[in-house]
């Protein structure tokens, strides 16, 4: 809000970058278990509201219209009980207290009440009014009296109101273009990054100020220069020619509410700065200062390839600092599972009379888990549910199965079974397998969820309460007796949602199923009774994805409201809200140690969130399209992401670096999965293929030297073809889901598409 009317010539602010960053970091959403209201509307303004706190004092003597702003800010600060800042600001701006009060009295008078959102809005709109009333203010008349249903938007947009001669925009831009094209090659690539954000902001300024024709001409002249991966955004932009349209445009708001981040070497930056100062190209300089964040680093400028591999997201690259936080990516020890497990195992197994198997198993598992991973989080960093007896039995099964696991390698590729959904006229939208591959769930566009048993064991419901009273509860096979044989069937249909089901996830214990739907709810279903247990409401908008934690109990969901939420099955409100994405959260995945959540978004970034404190600990940029699939490697160190651009990117979580770019798919990648030991990465796509990649080789080739880690400058070898181990076609079935069984058989699922 402070950046509403920045004075031309404030050039010093750029060096304050780090300070600003601190401020921004503080404002990372820290909503804890007290399930707060929907954050989506406030996310942007949250970060905006804080950064100016440091920037404003740097400004020069306030002019008349600035004074109005300052007063508004003072009131805002007061309302938020930031008395110290108020004092400083007042002192620096030279405002008398009475002056401020009188100004406030002029206003609508609602500003003094306790600070809810509506109050702030009315205050802010007064700022605009005042600004418009000022004689030397902008050429454009502000829409004064319009009933503002999106006041934040107004404020955001009003930043554009200050501008220069519209006819000169083309001159400015082409001047910069000429300059950048004339500089040394090594700098050119870096400075070229400026084109796109500058272009967008200048265009929007023109549109905002009702210079429709100039805007169109500007767009036509320069849109061809932009990188091809921005084409989708440009398409949205080109339709936008009216100021009125800007208000409701989410893509635009995304662009405005976040600062476009560029990484530029100090040399290049100095070059640019000198040029702009020489030319007095204030227009561009202002935009750089207000809307861009230039992350300056020392050292060699990056090459075009390096830049391209990292750019493409809606808000530029991630700041280097954003990926510096320590991430405990190691796996949790399983001692407390194992020790009692073995004890019980002894008894159980001895009763069954096969102690042999157990012994070997204990040994293998014991040696594995005794090593404490230095990168692992504390065992109780996140409270995890205690294991039930059935869970322990399942663990035993898991261990038994894993001893029979096939070791995969490039020479020994997995067999693939394809589960084809036939006659899925309702539109298959999501699929999930249980970990033991015994159940299969499909979410459909007709709002149903269907569960199939893919083993001969049929699905049975628990008997009704009346019948349950009749059974002998003391008998050994009581668990068998409670099931109603009459209901046995191969599949069950779960009705309850009122919109397409976009995400399904089984609980690890196979007792529950989660489904997320367009109707804004996440539902928890019991697989014992095949009824809905809970409807988790909170997203209010379509929920694109949901997933159970690997330990159960927790689950995460993400949706159109741009936030991901962490829930516990026994809380009807979310425990955490992960806010920060600039567009829809399209997919959500739990880290194997359950301490982190990865989210992929339409803003073409991937974020890693700490479940403990809700912080965003990693931002990965590089995809050129919305991200639709994520997969953690079984060891927790790596993350793979697939997007609509048909590429799979590999990320090193510890260092926060991209280390692989797997090209080959020709359509959106909807499914990614690492094999049980992580040697093979399988990707499934809309292009009806499953591809297998040599992830082991990719891990080994990774550059982990200190320099790369420190600078974040990556050199990606273009070795997709070497890493591609196999490509497998289906006839006409897009691959919706992939799953490795415990023995490393690859299961793929999709709906046969007859067209």
């Amino acid at each position: 809000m402070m950046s509403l009317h920045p004075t031309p010539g404030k050039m010093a602010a750029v060096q304050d970058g780090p300070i600003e960053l601190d401020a921004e970091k503080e404002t990372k959403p820290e909503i804890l278990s007290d399930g707060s209201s929907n954050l989506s509307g406030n996310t942007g303004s949250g970060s905006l509201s804080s950064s100016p706190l440091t920037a404003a004092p740097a400004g020069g003597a306030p002019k008349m219209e600035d004074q109005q702003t300052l007063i508004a800010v003072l009131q805002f600060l007061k309302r938020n009980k930031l008395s110290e800042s108020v004092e400083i600001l007042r002192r620096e701006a030279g405002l008398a207290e009475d002056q401020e009060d009188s100004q406030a009295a002029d206003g609508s008078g609602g500003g003094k009440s306790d600070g809810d959102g509506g109050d702030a809005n009315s205050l802010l709109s007064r700022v605009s009014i005042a600004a418009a009333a000022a004689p030397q203010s902008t050429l454009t008349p502000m829409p004064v009296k319009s009933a503002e249903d999106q006041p934040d938007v107004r404020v955001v947009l009003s930043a554009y109101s200050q501008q220069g001669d519209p006819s000169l925009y083309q001159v400015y831009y082409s001047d910069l273009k000429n300059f950048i094209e004339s500089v040394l090659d090594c700098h050119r690539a870096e400075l070229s990054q400026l084109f796109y954000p500058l272009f967008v902001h200048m265009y929007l300024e023109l549109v905002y100020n009702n210079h429709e024709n100039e805007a169109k001409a500007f767009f036509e002249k320069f849109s061809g220069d932009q990188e091809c991966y921005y084409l989708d955004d440009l398409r949205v932009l080109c339709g936008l020619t009216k100021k009125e349209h800007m208000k409701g445009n989410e893509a635009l708001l995304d662009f405005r509410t976040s600062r476009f981040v560029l990484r530029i070497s100090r040399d290049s930056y100095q070059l640019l700065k000198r040029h702009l100062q020489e030319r007095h190209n204030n227009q561009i300089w202002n935009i750089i200062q207000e809307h861009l964040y230039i992350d300056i680093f020392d050292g060699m400028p990056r090459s075009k390839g390096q830049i391209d591999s990292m750019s493409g997201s809606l808000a530029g690259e991630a700041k280097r600092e954003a990926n510096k936080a320590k991430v405990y990516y190691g796996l949790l020890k399983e001692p407390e599972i194992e020790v009692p497990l073995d004890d019980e195992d002894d008894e159980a197994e001895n009763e069954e009379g096969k102690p042999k198997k157990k012994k070997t198993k204990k040994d293998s598992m014991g040696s594995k888990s005794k090593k404490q991973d230095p990168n692992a989080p504390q065992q109780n960093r996140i409270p995890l549910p205690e294991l039930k007896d059935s869970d322990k039995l399942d663990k035993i099964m898991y261990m038994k199965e894993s001893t029979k696991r096939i070791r995969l390698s490039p020479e020994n590729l997995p067999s693939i079974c394809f589960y084809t959904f036939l006659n899925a006229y309702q539109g298959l939208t999501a699929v999930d397998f249980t970990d033991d591959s015994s159940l299969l769930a499909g979410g459909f566009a007709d709002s149903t969820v269907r569960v199939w048993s893919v083993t001969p064991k049929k699905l049975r419901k628990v008997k009704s309460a009346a019948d349950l009273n009749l059974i002998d509860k003391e008998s050994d096979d009581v668990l068998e007796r409670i099931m109603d044989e009459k209901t046995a069937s191969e599949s069950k249909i779960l009705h309850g949602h009122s919109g397409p089901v976009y995400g399904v996830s089984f609980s690890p214990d196979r007792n529950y199923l989660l489904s997320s739907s367009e109707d804004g709810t996440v539902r928890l279903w019991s697989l014992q009774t095949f009824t809905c247990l809970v409807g988790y409401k909170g997203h209010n908008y379509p929920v694109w994805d949901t997933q159970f934690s690997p330990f159960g109990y927790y689950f995460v969901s993400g949706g159109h409201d741009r936030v991901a939420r962490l829930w516990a099955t026994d809380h009807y409100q979310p425990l955490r809200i992960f806010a920060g994405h600039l567009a829809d959260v399209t997919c959500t995945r739990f880290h194997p140690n359950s301490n982190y959540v990865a989210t992929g978004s339409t803003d073409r970034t991937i974020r890693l969130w700490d479940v403990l404190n809700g912080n965003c600990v990693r931002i990965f940029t590089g995809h050129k399209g919305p991200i639709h699939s994520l997969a953690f490697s079984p060891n927790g160190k790596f993350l793979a992401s697939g997007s609509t651009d048909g590429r799979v990117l590999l990320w090193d979580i510890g260092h926060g670096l991209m280390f692989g770019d797997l090209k080959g798919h020709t359509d959106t990648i909807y499914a990614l999965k690492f094999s049980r030991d992580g040697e093979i990465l399988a990707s499934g796509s809309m292009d009806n293929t499953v591809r297998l990649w040599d992830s082991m080789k990719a891990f080994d080739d990774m550059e982990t030297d200190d320099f790369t880690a420190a600078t974040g400058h990556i050199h990606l070898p273009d070795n997709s073809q070497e890493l591609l181990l196999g490509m497998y076609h289906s006839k006409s079935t897009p691959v919706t889901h992939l799953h490795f069984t415990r023995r490393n058989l690859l299961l793929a699922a999709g709906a046969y598409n007859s067209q």
Partner: protein
Amino acid sequence: MTEREERRFAEVPRESIKLMAESTGVELSEEVAALLAEDVCYRLREATQNSSQFMRHAKRRKLSVEDFNRALRWSNTETVCGYGAQDALPFRPLKEGELFFVEDREINLVELALATNIPKGCAETMVRVNVSYLDGKGNLEPQGTVPTAVQSLSEDLLKYYQQITRAILGEDPHLMKVALLDLQSNSKIAALLPYFVYVISGVKSVSHDLDQLNRLLHMVKSLVQNPYLYLGSYVRSLVSSVMYCILEPLAASINPLNDHWTLRDYAALLLSHIFWTHGDLVSGLYHQILLSLQKVLSDPVRPLCSHYGAVVGLHALGWKAVERVLYPHLPAYWANLQAVLDDYSVSNAQVKADGHKVYGAILVAVERLLKMKALSLTLATEGGSAALPGTAAGAVGFRENSPGLSPPPEPLSEPPLGIASHLQAGGAGCPWEEWTPVSLPAMYCELYSFFGDSLAVRFSTDPPLGGAPPAGPCQPLEGRKEPASVAPNLESTRKMPQLTASMNISPRQDGSPRTEPQPPSLAATAPGRSLARSSSSSVSRSRSSSSRPGRSTSQSRDIFPKARFPPPQAGPPAFAFIIGGRQMGRRCQGRRFQTSFTPTPPLTSLPPRAYAHKLPVIGRVSKPVRRWTCSHYSLHLPL
């Protein structure tokens, strides 16, 4: 570039806006319309862009109406009225001008509501798993994730299948009747065809149970007759099941009381029916069948009942099959049969009875061969002279009606080399390429040498119309003493009707009528009886004549020399032998023998068995046959 940019997106012209406004009664100024038009364009684009995410999350490539409606709903806009469709709407361009429209055909609701063909519900959503790539190895060709029959059995079909099979194989004859009738006419059982075919292939497991075999064969017949079923390659499977019944020494054959002969007859007829109606579905079927029949026939180790099956099978396949396979093979086979028939020991009684069966079957087969051959010669002659206008029609009618004329053209279009190699590989008695048509008289002579009078007697006289099936065994004498070598010796003791047929026009022959080297005699002991049998013995044969009036013969083309009888009456072209016979003791006129027979008496009144008349030794149990023929499911072959 500007031009390209200008056409970045579709625009709604202001004229359209004005028109729309006018239609709701609002008058718009030019300015307002322009502004509105631009806004409408923008909103449309925005909604479209928003809707694309619904498409992406539904993992589709096509934007659907539903997606757009959702986008509208989430942007608080009233959705467009109408239905969202799952399928993409066909979007058609108009050739003239750049006009696109959604095809919206009118639907006649009345017709739809009153339609009798209720559309089937869509099949249930299901999951099928198949191993696509084993150990990561697989060709790069698209693999079959798509089964050929995507539509699987619905609950109803499954029930139907169970009921039908239960009814057919069950005890209740009435239920069976109903089930078979339904199977014959139901139009919705295409999906079940493989299952039924599978059931039918179970003949091999019930070869001890004649009743079950019969039921299965009836099932075949119903399937074959169902006009809604496309049998496709299942024909092969059906044929092999039927062939099994014809040829195999069934477990049921061990007991002489079991009437497996009837079963074989029925199966043979069924085979010919399948072949004549569906033979074109599988290429080379004809030759395959011939080959396997020939194999059986030439295998002396096989029991006589198998040989019998082969003969009746050949007979059912038509006279050409008989001519090509049975006739050349006869000399070799005859020795074996003779040995069996000449063995009068008690222990051989059963085998000998079987031998008589075979004998009778061969007799019937060659009889028709002779008749048909004569007929075809006549027709060829008539066709060649093109003198008679009715020939074509007659030929066509014959072609349609007779199973005996010739196989459909398709099987014969096989490359001759292939056929030859087939037959040679099979150890055929007569290599295919060496086969040359034998002239009718020569053939008759040769056959007469085998059968003697019992052949001649077939050419004696008309059957009494609807005559009651003669009771009582035939005279034992003739059957036993027919071998050619014996015939001359017995000549004096027998009544010797003389065959005095002649051929008037015979382009095949060199013009000079040949005289039979040895005029065969016509057995006159019980001519009326035997012919009555012959006319009604084989259903297929009687079928062939059913469409013709009994006695209408246009002109006689007497094949055999010394024809003394003028054509008795004119009529539609048909062929008749006039066989002059001289009987000892009394002179009588030659008997006319016709290729066209009187209409078959109703099947129920038929004598039970085709070949029952010939050999008195065979004490046939006619009871099951009667039941069979009395049932509604008698052989009614529309050949």
